[in-house]
């Protein structure tokens, strides 16, 4: 290692080769991934999120929600993601192509949110329930009341006002309304759906496994 320039080139090569291999390699494979055009429905998937939902992702990122929530459903035979009802199929790269900064996350203190929009649509409370959780928290979820405002009730009650009861109910004559940030955040979460089956996302692993065991 007497040769300084050669040593320097070695260092540069170590970084450059791994960067080219991992980053450029996967970029070459996925960088141009197009949305899928469904001929029968005459639509492209994944659907491009609306402007409000896109702004909601900024809120999701800046609050650091990804510290406790993942947004990646693993395939049915890898972990219990499907059994938990987090998604019927695994997440694939195409799900994220419209996202400004995919929030895959690395910790599951809370549930996976890749398909939370579809899950919420099935519940009775839907968006209102989500607002309530964000405002008052629960034994497992912090309360982000700074995303909400208490305002005096003038005239009619706002349609967006939260239906709260018990200790969290506002003083009579006041109402709790979501700020713009809360509205966009919830719109973003409602937009998260992995219900469309892309050709590459149809779960194949589970059936083949059972066939093998039959033999």
């Amino acid at each position: 290692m007497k040769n300084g320039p050669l040593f320097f080139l070695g260092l540069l090569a170590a970084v450059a080769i791994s960067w080219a291999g991992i980053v450029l390699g996967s970029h070459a494979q996925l960088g141009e991934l197009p949305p899928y055009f469904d001929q029968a429905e005459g639509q492209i998937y994944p659907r491009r999120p609306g402007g409000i939902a896109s702004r909601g992702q900024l809120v999701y990122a800046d609050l650091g929600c990804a510290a406790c929530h993942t947004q990646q459903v693993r395939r049915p035979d890898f972990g219990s993601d499907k059994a938990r009802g987090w998604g019927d199929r695994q997440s694939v790269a195409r799900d994220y192509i419209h996202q400004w900064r995919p929030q895959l996350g690395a910790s599951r203190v809370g549930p996976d949110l890749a398909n939370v929009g579809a899950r919420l649509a099935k519940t009775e409370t839907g968006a209102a329930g989500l607002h309530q959780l964000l405002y008052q928290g629960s034994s497992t979820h912090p309360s982000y009341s700074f995303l909400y405002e208490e305002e005096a009730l003038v005239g009619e009650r706002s349609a967006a006002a939260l239906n709260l009861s018990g200790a969290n109910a506002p003083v009579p004559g006041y109402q709790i309304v979501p700020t713009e940030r809360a509205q966009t955040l919830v719109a973003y979460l409602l937009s998260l759906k992995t219900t469309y089956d892309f050709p590459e996302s149809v779960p194949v692993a589970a059936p083949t496994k059972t066939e093998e065991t039959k033999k």
Partner: protein
Amino acid sequence: MINSPTHAGSAEVTPIDPTARGPLLLLVGMALGWLVISGTFALIASIQLHTPQFLADCSWFTFGRTDAMRESTFIYGWAGNAGLAISLWILGRLGGNPLRATNWVTVGTLFWNLGLTAGLVGIATGDMTSFSMLQLPAYVQPLMLFAYATIAISGVLAWGGRRSDGTFAAQWYAVAALFVFPWLFSAAQAVLLWMPVRGTVQAIAAGWFMQGLWTLWLAPLALAGSYYIVPKTSGRVLPSYDFASLGFWTLLFVGAWTGGRHLVGGPVPAWVPTVGVVACSLMIFHYSIVFLNLRVVTASVGNAAQFIRLGLIAYLLVGLLDMITSFRFVAEQMQFTFLASALQQLGLYGAISMIFFGCIYFMMPRIAGVPWASVAMMSAHRMAVIIGILLLVGGLAAAGMMQAGDLLNPSANLGDILARIRLPLLVVTFAHIILIGANLLLFVNFLKTAASRADGDVRVRNLFRQPSAIEASAT
């Protein structure tokens, strides 16, 4: 030609050290200050894990933001400042000339820490990038890069102007860390912030950066310190030293490929995690050689050596566990649990920080020209930090083990899982309290030592004639 490490005792006292005293003390002081601050963020974040309502209504301290601040202050504040101080000092000594461009080091250090402070305010007010270990807002990152380059100039000059033709392993690792960080940092910024790649390629690039930060920056900094200090404290020539270069190049060329293992089962091409798993297994060569070379640390005496010994054990353990946990059937269980945090803390605290502590204990009396102010504080710090790290890693690992089993069981509700792991999470909080106390001791001891220098104590100069007394060994 590769020179054999010099015999212990020589180069204990050099005229080289005093020239860089100011900048190096500044770097170490900043590092220790950030370590205490990082511990405070870690404490807040750990409380929030078992008591979610703690500080929840304060938007500056949502769990995500607190954790990002904890991580940023730890990596860029503590490890960055301390690692730079150690590598500059080693390059200066092994280069055989007094460090040059020390004013640049001072200026760079000030800007580096100003940038970090601005970045923290940015994270608290909602500008974090949401990429792990690269959380500092996009607008301070160019400043950090510039400040880093300003500090590193001195090390590069020391390397370029070295007196001897041959080089030592400590020098390779130090130079590698100095050069590689700006490349990693700027390449990650380019593809994640300035011209972001699309979709999940971002996650792959972020994984590459995160792994690179560990294998190409933090690990080389720690190894530079170990390769320099172990022969001195053990009084032995490093065994199997001829293999050291193989260990070095394995780390550099293979290490950066291991990042993809965290994405196993994720929405990325299958080759990305597979390459990571293979690379993780190949890294066994690197860890074996580090073990072969540095096993003489068992013969070392002194406070510094005790830290480095434990740090190296943790380092080898991390290598082994990284390999085991990268396999798919293990990853299926431990992915997304606190086991991953346990392994990360074992690496960052158990390995990197312990080695850095050892290096600081060894380096400080030599650059300050005075022995450590308090031997009692030194031993107290050592005991407390060992207990703190064991509780921290143990608590996280216990929480992770319970969580791993429960997450695979679909009937276990997430709220119940969190309730069940409350006890280990409380242990983690307790560990952070101990660690803050321990690191405060070190910080105060450092300040007292630096201040006693200013008193111009004459007695101390005599110590230079008895090198073994310098370290005020607490054994």
